[in-house]
C-alpha cells in the first residue's frame, strides 16, 4: 500500500453560533469565535489517498486529476468565502475544523473512491499550525 498526499490552501471566514443557545451561552461556549461579523483563517488541507500503484503508470492516481478534484470540489466552493453563508453544505452547521473536515471528506469521497485504484484515506485540515483535525472516514 502506498499513501500519496496532496496539499492545498484556502482562506475563508466563519463564525460559531448556535441559534438554539442563548446569547450568553453562545459567548460562553464559543468565546471569540462567536463574534457576529466572523473572522478568518488560512486553512491548509492535506488529502491522502491510499492504494497500490497501477503497474502500467506507476501511479496510485494521477496527481493532476486529484489537483483538479480539489480545485473543483473544495477551492472553488470554499476559497475566499464566508463558510456559514456561502457554502451550502455547511448551512445551519457550526463550521468548526471538525465539521469542515467531515464535509470535505463527504465531498471528495465519491470523486476518488469510484476508480479502480486508490481510496480516500485521510483528510487533514489545519485551521492554524497548532490546531488541526484528521477525518478518517468510517471504520478506520
Amino acid at each position, binding site marked *: 500500500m502506498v499513501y500519496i498526499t496532496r496539499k492545498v490552501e484556502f482562506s475563508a471566514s466563519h463564525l460559531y453560533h448556535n441559534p438554539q443557545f442563548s446569547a450568553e451561552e453562545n459567548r460562553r461556549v464559543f468565546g471569540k469565535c462567536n463574534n457576529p461579523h466572523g473572522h478568518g483563517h488560512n486553512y491548509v488541507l492535506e488529502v491522502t489517498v491510499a492504494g497500490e500503484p497501477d503497474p502500467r503508470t506507476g501511479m496510485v492516481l494521477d496527481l493532476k486529476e486529484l489537483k483538479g478534484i480539489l480545485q473543483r470540489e473544495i477551492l472553488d466552493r470554499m476559497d475566499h468565502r464566508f463558510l456559514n453563508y456561502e457554502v451550502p453544505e455547511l448551512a445551519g452547521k457550526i463550521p468548526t475544523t471538525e465539521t469542515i473536515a467531515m464535509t470535505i471528506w463527504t465531498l471528495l469521497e465519491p470523486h476518488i473512491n469510484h476508480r479502480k485504484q486508490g481510496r480516500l484515506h485521510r483528510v487533514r485540515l489545519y485551521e492554524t499550525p497548532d490546531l488541526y483535525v*484528521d477525518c478518517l472516514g*468510517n471504520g478506520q
Partner: protein
Amino acid sequence: MKVVLHRRYRFSASHRLHQSAAAGWTEEENRRVYGKCAHPYGHGHNYILDVSVSGPVDPATGMITNLPELDGFVEREILAEFDHAYLNEQVAAFRDEVPTAENICRVVFDRLRAYPHARLEAIGIEETGANSFEYTGE
C-alpha cells in the same frame, strides 16, 4: 466517521540523559550511549507537544471537545510543571526514569489519558525540528 483533533503546545525544558551508578551504569557507558546528552549540567530544548483526541462531534457545537477545556487540562497537568523546568529534578517521574523524548511521551500520555471529555489517541513530542516521537498507549 472517525475524527481526531490535534492540538500543539510548546514548552522549553532542560534534561540530562544519564543513568546512575546505583542503576549499574559507569560514566564511560553513559558517555558511550548518550554522548553529549550525558554532559553533567544538562541541556535544553524547545519541545512541541502534539495532543490528539477523538470522539463524537457534538452537533450542537460542532466540536469533539471545547478547546479551552483541553488547553486548561494540558496547562494544569503538563505545561505548568514542565515548562522552564529541569525535567530530571523537577518532574517526579523522571527521578527514576531517564527523560528521553520516548519517556516524555509515555509520562505525558499517562497523565493526559484522564481527560474526561474525549478519548486520548496519541502524544507526539518534537524535541527538535529533526526528531519527533509518537506514543499511542500500546
